[in-house]
């Protein structure tokens, strides 16, 4: 916690300076609020509109969490399958990379055409953006397991399952967590994009309504909410990493 404060004060003060400059510039140049509202307006709107916004926020949080969980599950499953079945890896891995080149913005409306406005197309969007970083990170981790460890384990009679559970999986955890951090932040973006497609609630919906009625202050409330949410997700993963990979943090502390 002290560490967070010690490391956090610098970016925090930069951010504060930025907001002050923004406030002054908007006031001095008399920019109309629908074009660019000053930060104080945004804060005011965030407080006064909280009751209306909370409902959207909740919906997005739930959607992101659910999508992230499913994306993580599928990402891990894909990684394990590709790792244990090299034959499938060779044929499927290039296709996975291709799947990341399909622009989500284009794919999303199609998903609505195919699956309607329900939960399913939204989860598909989030899963699509979430699973890939996890699959790549986990696969890398599995494959980078040092030969000396593998050689020992095999000489000592480890079965393929033991090799995976006792060596490759724990070895890949640090790498896996870098993937999880990326996916966690992507999941919020994915959720918002999927809400643009049409939903009853969510930050995406709130944003669309706000921008079509020129409530720029509300758009900014939404933007900051998304940033904060991503940061929180990231922090959550960081915490889980600290708890799960104790040996690593102690290792770097010694060095």
């Amino acid at each position, binding site marked *: 916690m002290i560490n967070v404060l010690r490391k956090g004060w610098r970016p925090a003060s930069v951010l504060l300076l930025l907001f002050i400059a923004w406030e002054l510039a908007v006031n001095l140049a008399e920019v109309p609020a629908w074009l660019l509202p000053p930060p104080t307006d945004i804060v005011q709107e965030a407080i006064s509109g909280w009751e209306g916004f909370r409902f959207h926020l909740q919906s997005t949080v739930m959607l992101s969490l659910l999508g992230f969980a499913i994306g993580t599950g599928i990402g891990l499953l894909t990684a394990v399958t590709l790792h244990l079945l090299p034959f499938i890896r060779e044929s499927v891995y290039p296709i996975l990379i291709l799947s990341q080149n399909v622009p989500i913005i284009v794919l999303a409306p199609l998903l609505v055409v195919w699956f309607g406005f329900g939960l399913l197309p939204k989860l598909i969007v989030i899963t699509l953006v979430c699973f890939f970083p996890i699959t790549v990170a986990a696969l890398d981790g599995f494959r980078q397991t040092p030969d000396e460890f593998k050689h020992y*384990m095999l000489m000592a009679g480890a079965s393929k399952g033991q090799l995976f559970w006792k060596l490759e999986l724990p070895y890949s955890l640090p790498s896996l967590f870098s993937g999880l951090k990326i996916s966690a932040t992507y999941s919020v973006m994915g959720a918002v994009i999927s809400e643009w497609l049409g939903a009853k609630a969510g930050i995406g919906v709130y944003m669309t309504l706000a921008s079509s009625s020129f409530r720029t202050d509300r758009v900014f409330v939404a933007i900051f909410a998304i940033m904060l949410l991503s940061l929180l997700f990231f922090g959550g993963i960081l915490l889980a990493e600290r708890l799960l990979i104790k040996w690593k943090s102690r290792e770097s502390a010694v060095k």
Partner: protein
Amino acid sequence: MIQLSVEHLTKSFDTNQVLNNLSFHVNVGEFVSILGPSGSGKSTIFNLIGGMLLPDEGSIILGGEKIDGKRGSISYMPQTPSLLPWRTILQNVLLGQELKGETDSQTARKMLQKAGLGDYENAYPHELSGGMKQRAAFIRALLSPQPIILLDEPFSALDELTRLEMQKWLLDIWSEHKPTILFVTHSIEEAIYLSDRILILSSKPAKVTQEYNVPFNRPRMEELFLDENFLACKRNIHHALKNQ
């Protein structure tokens, strides 16, 4: 009684013949060293015995049973300690048992204590010195349930003083538990100091050119290194290695 016997082993990698008709045996409770120049195929012999490779010809028999290509029949200590960084020392030394079945943490704790690692039971490998890691790796091999331990140049990465200390420690622990050991080294002194019997290997392709019974009684003290007979012994083996 013979514990391990290697019979007429031949192995090539493509056109590179590494072993040719190699035969030797290790008796129960015996400490046998394999001495040979670098690249002569010592690790290859271990990989064959450990079932990582299949021999082109010949067979490997452990306790009367053929173990060609059967992994996990022997206990192994590699050149690098290969302790898993996310496991504590106690969890690491239990790994060999864990892979084969039941673990016995009580005995493991006792052995760690005796090896001066009692305080490091719950430490992670990176908190230990090189010598301590090798001790933990040896205890892991000793605790493993297999009837023979293969050690592949376990002390070659250590500094001179630590190596000497480790050799003494290994002798102590060997005389206490009397495990059957097959030990690879390219240090003549190490081989004489530790073993009952030394197999001298020629290179390209490897064959046992000479077998040498070490004449010194146990327990062996450090002073042995300066003994005249020890030096004579060293000279003999040196010649044998040179003149092949």
